């Protein structure tokens, strides 16, 4: 008998007694039905069990290879502050070690925070309803695309703006092709969705949905006055992808007339974590509720007349409808949903507004300072931006030269856009001193 590790409670006596009840002599007897030729011939080669101190030492070495940087990169993922209380609550193991709340009687904790999250996201987006979240902003947008086609009769064209994040567009394409959804790209004019092109494409008919991003990939806040009328006149649905945090100040998808709002909620103070876990939100008008994929929590009352929360409208889902379900998703982002609810509770409307005001001022100060070096110029000076913007380098300076020089100083200067473009973002984490440092680096190039 081998030595047991700390996660396995069985002693040799336990095993012997338990095997006896099972009418087996050895543990291997329980595998008599596994053909010999399929059996593992040698150990996996993972190695000997590692003790806790050894494990920590290994991860400390690995961690030292990571170099967190002063972050001016965005492109959909933003370095906002995470209040300490968020982490404290999300680490509560009653939340963290629970499964999907199938048994509402002993899952009110999970169900209640999802209900609160749904309420908050509906408020932010100006929509009537929200699901319990999906994996990330890109897959949320893919689900929105599928929803718009599922809601349209025999129409399968979906128009996406070329100002949408390229990563999101690639995920949409992956999801669209096997389902026979035809994705068409609306050209941009000076960095914003071309309205005349959009009208022409809508006029060609068969459009189920139009997907737009706000602020768009280049950070521009697009003016969509009357755009919903154009889209709805073609009987298509208007889908708006927006970074959750910006909805603290920007006109909401609901106020623009959207039918579906979706996107990435990482900006609600979720750590960058090298790409995840993040949080995809998906909200819609009430009329579309039964087309909304994923888990949805509803309020009801229990036998004693008390308020209770349950998973509801499950007839849409895969465990009941199998291949006819609205989606194959059978989970949500769980703890990240709790993160969003706690973050928004702490921030409130005023805190979220202040985050946006600080981010916006930092970004504008950064743009001004960099323009002042004479080495960079705003690419779209005619358009308003919130906390992200594109600058073009002035010959012979290249974006890569800036990125490299900044990286040497521990600064992530932004993300390259096209040949001469550098896209930069700022948040409340960016100090005036950080701006000065980057500006000096650029000046000295």
């Amino acid at each position, binding site marked *: 008998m081998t030595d047991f590790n700390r996660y396995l409670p069985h002693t040799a006596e336990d095993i012997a007694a338990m095997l006896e009840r099972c009418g087996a002599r050895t543990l291997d007897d329980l595998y008599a039905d596994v053909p010999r030729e399929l059996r593992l011939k040698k150990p996996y080669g993972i190695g000997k069990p590692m003790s806790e101190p050894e494990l920590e030492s290994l991860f400390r070495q690995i961690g030292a290879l990571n170099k967190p940087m002063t972050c001016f990169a965005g492109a959909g993922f933003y370095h906002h502050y995470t209040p300490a209380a968020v982490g404290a609550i999300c680490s509560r193991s009653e939340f*963290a070690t629970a499964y999907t709340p199938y048994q509402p009687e002993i899952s009110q904790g999970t169900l*209640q925070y999802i*209900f609160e999250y749904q309420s908050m996201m509906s408020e932010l987006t100006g929509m009537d*309803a929200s699901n319990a979240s999906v994996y990330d902003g890109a897959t949320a947008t893919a689900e929105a695309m599928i929803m718009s086609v599922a809601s349209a009769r025999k129409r399968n064209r979906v128009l996406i703006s070329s100002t949408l994040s390229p990563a999101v567009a690639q995920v949409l394409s992956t999801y669209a092709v*096997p389902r026979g959804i035809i994705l068409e790209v609306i050209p941009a004019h000076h960095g914003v969705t071309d309205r005349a092109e959009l009208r022409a494409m809508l006029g060609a008919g068969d459009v189920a949905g139009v997907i737009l991003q706000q602020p768009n990939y280049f950070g521009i806040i697009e003016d969509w006055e009357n755009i919903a009328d154009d889209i709805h006149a073609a009987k298509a649905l208007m889908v708006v992808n927006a970074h959750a945090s910006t909805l603290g100040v920007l006109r909401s998808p609901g106020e623009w007339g959207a039918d579906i709002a979706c996107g990435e909620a990482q900006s609600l103070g979720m750590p960058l974590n090298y790409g995840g876990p993040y949080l995809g939100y998906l909200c819609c008008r009430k009329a579309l509720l039964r087309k909304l994929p994923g888990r949805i929590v509803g*309020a009801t009352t229990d036998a004693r007349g008390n308020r209770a929360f349950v998973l509801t409208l499950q007839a849409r889902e895969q465990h009941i409808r199998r291949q006819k379900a609205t989606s194959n998703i059978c989970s949500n982002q769980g703890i990240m949903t709790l993160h969003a609810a706690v973050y928004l*509770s702490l921030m409130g409307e005023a805190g979220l507004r202040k985050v946006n005001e600080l981010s916006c*001022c930092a970004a504008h100060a950064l743009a001004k300072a960099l323009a002042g070096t004479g080495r960079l110029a705003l690419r779209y000076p005619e358009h308003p931006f919130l906390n992200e913007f594109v600058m073009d380098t002035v010959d012979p300076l290249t974006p890569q030269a800036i990125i490299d020089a900044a990286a040497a100083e521990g600064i992530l200067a932004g993300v390259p856009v096209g040949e001469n473009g550098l896209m930069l973002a700022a948040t409340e984490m960016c100090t005036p001193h950080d701006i000065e440092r980057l500006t000096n680096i650029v000046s000295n190039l």
Partner: protein
Amino acid sequence: MNNKLYSPLIFEKSHKGRKGYSLPDYDYGVEFELPSSLRRHTAPVLPEVDEPTVVRHYTNSSTNNFGVDSGFYPLGSCTMKYNPKVNEAMVDVANVANLHPLQPAATAAGALEIYHSLASALCRIGGMAEFTLNPFAGAHGEYTGLMVIRSYHLDRGDETRTKVLVPDSAHGTNPASAAMAGFDIVEVKSLADGTIDVDDLVSKLDNTVAALMMTNPNTIGMFEHSIPRIAEAVHAVGALLYYDGANLNPMLGVARPGDMGFDVMHINLHKTFSTPHGGGGPGAGPVGVRDGLGKYLPNPRVVRGADGLLDVVFDDTACGRMGAWLGNFTVYIKALAYILTMGDEGLAMAGKLATLNANYIMNSLKSLYELPVAGPCKHEFVFDGLKDKSTGVTTMNVAKALLDRGFHAPTIYFPLLFHESLMIEPTETESRETLDSFIAAMADIALTASDNPQAVKDAPLNTPVVHPDEDEAALNPIVTYKELCAK
């Protein structure tokens, strides 16, 4: 549990003028301005609460929840094993919190090392040639795996393969994922012992079939002993064999999907590899493929370059892109910590003890509950309700009675092969004493059902809420606080 005291929503604790945030007052030397046409017209209604109120609200709310740390969670097919605390601690130690996904690979070398090490370990465990970790969850892994299969057939110019075969005992996600990947679904029948009816399978195999999806052991915990024959038949018509890794746990150290003949597989890190389920997520559904299929794995990919350094690359042969970046990254840290902690011998012992625990419960209760398929089982098994069918006590009643006795319920009414399915999966991290107390509770429910069936039907009585009206919730959905106020 503080249900009575703390049940109000956070919105109902809001008090104008209170605040729970702390932000700097940097002077950037510019004024905040936005054209009014682009600003919100109506402020979002969010709670105004101080930090102690928020912390107390959610802390008390958590006590109305049941997790693996609270007690036994024998939820079939969900592998609710203990979630080691050191795994959580390693997330901080690994120093990834402030890494932006688009920063240069050289500055995220540790993160890429974690990704690569875990993928390599999964290759060894699955018997596969390559793994992507990117898929966000099991269902997302299935979808990714099917997209790989789709790309493989199309790349060979084989455009006739429109069908995916799925056993009637399969998880609902299997057909739903196949539909997402554009396939038509054909069901394969099960035999009385719950394993695949190979004759029925063979009759449905031809050059229109892209793949057969299977779990092994299957959803009633039986090992599909005909797997060599099945693999041969599937491959003979040019189709691929897909392994749904939801039930991988009991096979640890025993047999590998790759050696069984599977071509593509996914693994639920939140099941077999002990990462927390988080009430729904974040999960991870890495997908592995046999030699020759790696080029279809999704973008982006982590590869070791000629210089020996890891890099993130995009490749045209990929089946597409499944998410914005490399998936739920922190989950990988936890799974890798678990695998290294267990080592070869620990993993092998975990699989076998999971099987022992399931057989122990099954043998202890089969005189009181209907066992439609005799064992030995693997990690889980299914009872078809109470043995005594005269009581009128249903599987739902048994599940709710367990809640009153301090246990989470098993998975109920799944698989669909039986009317009163009670699917029990104890996992290896439960002690004999815990199993004995669960067995005693199940026995007590069975005996009470015969003596006083109403007492079982009335359950639960001791939970924070009792018998919530789910029909009303679905008939008139109230999904936000705003709707609750308007009611």
